[in-house]
């Protein structure tokens, strides 16, 4: 609360060849002043975007599926395509049709919610991927984590659940203790962390790159620097398009991993 806003806000007078160093974007880029405060709770822009994501996802699917028709209209058709993509393309593929059906709503929700939170990155005025704050991917990763750990013990019982998580298999012989330890850490402790961080880091890095090239474009606009500025601006455009792709891919990967964890929890012990 004590930092000087000027060190974070953009200094409009700073350009190359003017004796001013490049104001490289840093972690400050990911911090926002609260829009308002209610009893110590600070409501900031990413929170607003997260809630807007909720409204948009629910709003879209409301329009598409609230009164669905046998012969679909345009919105319903798009909604069905998206729904089908997650249902058949991910859940049925990974978990299987019979076991997977139960988890389709969760996966559809996660996919579109995450995708939209990612998508804010390149939407004018918003221009911030909510998922580049670890809390949002972590929230979803925790839900998935609780679900698959619970399912593991529910499916295999207490002992079987531990065997499933630790990859216990007598035929491994002397490496068995090693495998059990590694699998225990890898599955139970590291997995939720990597699940969240994979999404977070991608969005974090992507956003940082776009901000960096945007700032550089402005910074380089002085004298001959316009040549570099042009190159930098081209990078902004390229990165924006690339991000558009990465946003969808990361949402896809996040759901894909969630499904594979659930599939692993449901799988027969081997």
């Amino acid at each position: 609360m004590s930092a000087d806003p000027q060190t974070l806000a953009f200094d409009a007078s700073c350009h190359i060849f003017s004796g001013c160093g490049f104001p490289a974007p840093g972690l400050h880029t990911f911090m926002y002043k609260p829009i308002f405060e209610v009893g110590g709770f600070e409501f900031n822009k990413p929170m607003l975007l997260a809630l807007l994501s909720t409204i948009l996802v629910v709003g879209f699917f409301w329009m598409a599926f609230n009164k669905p028709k046998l012969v679909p209209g345009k919105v319903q058709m798009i909604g069905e395509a998206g729904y089908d993509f997650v249902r058949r393309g991910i859940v049925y593929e990974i978990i299987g049709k019979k076991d997977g059906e139960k988890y389709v709503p969760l996966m559809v929700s996660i996919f579109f919610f995450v995708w939209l939170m990612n998508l804010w990155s390149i939407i004018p005025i918003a221009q911030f991927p909510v998922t580049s704050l670890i809390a949002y991917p972590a929230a979803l990763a925790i839900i998935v984590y609780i679900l698959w750990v619970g399912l593991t013990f529910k499916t295999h019982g207490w002992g079987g659940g531990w065997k499933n998580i630790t990859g216990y298999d007598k035929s491994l012989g002397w490496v068995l203790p090693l495998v059990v330890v590694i699998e225990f850490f890898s599955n139970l402790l590291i997995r939720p962390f990597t699940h969240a961080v994979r999404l977070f880091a991608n969005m974090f890095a992507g956003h940082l790159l776009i901000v960096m090239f945007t700032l550089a474009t402005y910074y380089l606009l002085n004298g001959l620097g316009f040549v570099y500025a042009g190159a930098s601006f081209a990078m902004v455009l390229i990165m924006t398009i690339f991000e558009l792709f990465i946003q969808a891919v990361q949402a896809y990967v996040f759901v894909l991993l969630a499904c594979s964890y659930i599939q692993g929890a449901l799988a027969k012990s081997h």
Partner: protein
Amino acid sequence: MNALYVAAAAEPQNPLIPHLDELVIGLIAFAIVFGFLAKKLLPNINKVLEQRREAIEGGIEKAEEAKTEAQSVLEQYKAQLAEARHEAARLRQEATEQGAAIIQEMKAEGQRQREEIVAAGHAQIEADRKAAASALRQDVGKLATDLAGKLVGESLEDTARQSRTIDRFLDELEDGASKAEAAR
């Protein structure tokens, strides 16, 4: 442009440590999405997808039914046609047989009639011959008698006697003829 980078008031901390308030907002935001989708919207669309699937499958089933029916009707028709052909062939065969029988019958009848006519002709001829023979006998007798009367000058008016004499004479003639025949 500055609006983009509205400065936060806090010192940046480790970006890997989630803020609790953001975590809570994230969970709430997601819970709302999940609630709407899982409780209302996805069941809605599932129902419709199921109905659509049924409608399509129903259509296919109906088409299948119609096809089977058409097939059975066709087979029925074919069977009827074959039966009709069979019947026609049978009738033709029967007619041929009947015709042959009739012809046979007619032939037999014709033969019979011919024989009858021939037999009748023979009988007629025989009767005529007999009549002619008896008539001839009388004429010959009268002529002979007349001739003999003239020759012997004796009246032989007595019919009975005459007749006996003629008969005797003719019988001798016949006997002589038959003896001659037998001798030959």
